[in-house]
């Protein structure tokens, strides 16, 4: 380092003004904190009713917010890595509300909070078992042969597999931020994108087996740490700089806290299912090769013959677009549509611009295929 004077010239008056503004911000934030009530940071608040339950899995039906104009009913499935409440984070950032207002009849499956007792559950238990039971329940309630499926992230893989194995039971398949080709992360080499793919491949299969054997499941806290690693400086700055930026603005501050609440609610991923997820899919990439097996049946993507809408986030660092788009060349339908949206993995659902486009994009596409 040379002895060139560093080019930081902050005038004392500016520094004082900045410090004063900062103190005011903190004071207002502290006041907000003092008056904060639990219900202000509640998430997943759109009214819904339980219609079916088995083990830890619950199927809910949302109460309508408008006259039903889209049929058949849509079943929303999130993955096991996070919670379905991402789709209903808050009133003005809710895919669920947007779809209800646009006339969809909406159901959601909640996988609950698996514990060590659920370590032996496999992906086929979730896909053919619980998800299949939810589809059956909805079909029987409405006396219909097929439902619309809307999968999110890992839930998108679940719905993809279910649709391939049970094409007659699915009217339309909507996927959002869903990985299909788990090795396509390198196609567009963008710094920081696809780190989970790379990180998982850096492990040996036996590392994963031992990890699951030791903990019984894939601990939610552990996956949370892996996600934090993907945005290193953001993680470092989050609780000082980011929070400081918003803490005097009630709306922004509550948004921040609701997001933190969702992030903190990260369930454990059942052990055997996690082994399949990490080894069969992330490491061996079996899904795109039509080699992925569930309960002895191979998932053939070519059997997906119903219309497919594939939504991805253009700046998704967790599920890079290429890993989703790979589905297009594999499905057995010509009615395949891609909907690229601005934003990142979570931003698609909560970002001001994207979440509006997402709701109307899905609703319009479904309405045209009733």
């Amino acid at each position, binding site marked *: 380092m040379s002895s060139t004077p560093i080019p930081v010239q902050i005038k004392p008056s500016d520094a004082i003004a900045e410090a004063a503004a900062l103190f005011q911000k903190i004071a207002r934030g502290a006041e907000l904190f003092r008056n904060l009530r639990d219900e202000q940071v509640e998430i997943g608040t759109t009214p819904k009713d339980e219609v079916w339950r*088995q083990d830890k899995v619950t199927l809910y039906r949302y109460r309508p917010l408008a006259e039903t104009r889209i049929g058949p009913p849509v079943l929303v499935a999130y993955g096991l890595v996070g919670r379905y409440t991402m789709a209903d984070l808050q009133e003005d950032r809710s895919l669920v509300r947007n779809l209800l207002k646009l006339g969809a009849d909406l159901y959601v499956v909640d996988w609950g909070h698996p514990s060590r007792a659920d370590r032996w559950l496999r992906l086929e238990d979730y896909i053919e078992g619980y998800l299949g039971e939810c589809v059956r329940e909805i079909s029987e309630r409405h006396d219909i042969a097929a439902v619309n499926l809307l999968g999110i992230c890992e839930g998108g893989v679940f719905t993809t597999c279910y649709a391939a194995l049970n094409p007659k039971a699915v009217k339309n398949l909507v996927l959002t931020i869903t990985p299909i080709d788990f090795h396509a992360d390198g196609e567009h080499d963008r710094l920081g994108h696809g780190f989970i793919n790379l990180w998982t491949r850096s492990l040996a299969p036996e590392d994963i087996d031992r990890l699951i054997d030791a*903990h019984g499941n894939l601990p939610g806290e552990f996956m949370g740490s892996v996600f934090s690693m993907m945005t290193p400086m953001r993680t470092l700055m989050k609780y000082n700089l980011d929070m400081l930026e918003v803490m005097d603005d009630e709306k922004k501050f509550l948004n921040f806290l609701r997001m933190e609440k969702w992030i903190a609610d990260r369930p454990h991923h059942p052990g055997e299912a996690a082994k399949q997820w990490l080894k069969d899919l992330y490491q061996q990439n079996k899904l795109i090769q039509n080699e992925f097996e569930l309960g002895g049946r191979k998932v053939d993507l070519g059997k997906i013959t119903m219309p497919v809408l594939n939504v991805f986030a253009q700046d998704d660092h967790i599920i890079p677009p290429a890993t989703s788009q790979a589905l297009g060349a594999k499905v057995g339908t010509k009615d395949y549509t891609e909907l690229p949206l601005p934003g990142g993995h979570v931003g698609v659902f909560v970002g001001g611009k994207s979440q509006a486009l997402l709701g109307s994009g899905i609703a319009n596409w479904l309405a045209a295929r009733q």
Partner: protein
Amino acid sequence: MTANPTNPFEYMQGLAAMWGRGAEGFAAAQQTMFRDMAERMGKAAEGAPAASPTGMPDAEALMAAQREYSRLWSSALEVSQTVGRVMREGAPPDPLVTEMLGKIFDPRPWFSSNDDIDGELRRLAEGPRLADLWQVERRVLNVFNAWTELRRRSLEHNTVMLDAWLKAATAFAKELNQKAERGEVLESWRAVLALWVETANTVLLETQRSEPYLQSQRNMLNASTELQLAQQEVAEFYSQMFGYPTRAELDDVYKTVTELRREVRALRRDARAGATKRANKSGGARGKAKAQASPAPEGADR
């Protein structure tokens, strides 16, 4: 520590000195402890799978990891001192800038935050405490081996992170110099911070894709797993001794329950399919088939 807390670089220097003295003391204490353990546990350790041929923890590897970490820490300190000196050579230092740059140039948060995984793994693994170690000798030796290995792997990973911090600090300083040469100035602490975040983020993301980072992460993960498993072995021993159900027995029960539930689901599916088939044959409506397929009382699915 006598460092003036208002000067971040003196603080850092003091911290480094304390760390150095602490590391030396820790190393000496460990050697004594391991030697003592070897004498006490010589017979008990026979036949135990061990990290080194003697059954002893690999203290030498741990020392090597500490030496490498220490070497990089000295370099980090040098960078910090240089920045401090440059600041004092310029215009009268603004306390706000001094403090803020001091914080920026502190590599410690890189361990605490980017070391999240290490922290989480440790928290997950370090359930049982070490108080009962001497009572289950062979298993305890395994725990100590695994614990030593985790400390070593953790140090190795921190060394990779420290190296990344050095790269980021150097890149940041270079960027500042270039701005100075171009006559550009940063007029607010936010601008300085933004520059640092951008520079550091790039370096961190590049580091994460590097082989040394991925390898040290993997080693740390595996070491944590082995520690957890070694501790579970001790817990199993105690459970058996006192007649409590063991982890393995509970897992066995869970497995049976899961398999039974799976069978029940399959049987229900078959029953429904059979009922639908019969209803279709007799020309019945779907609603009728549903009624026949649900002979179980209300809430049976729950």
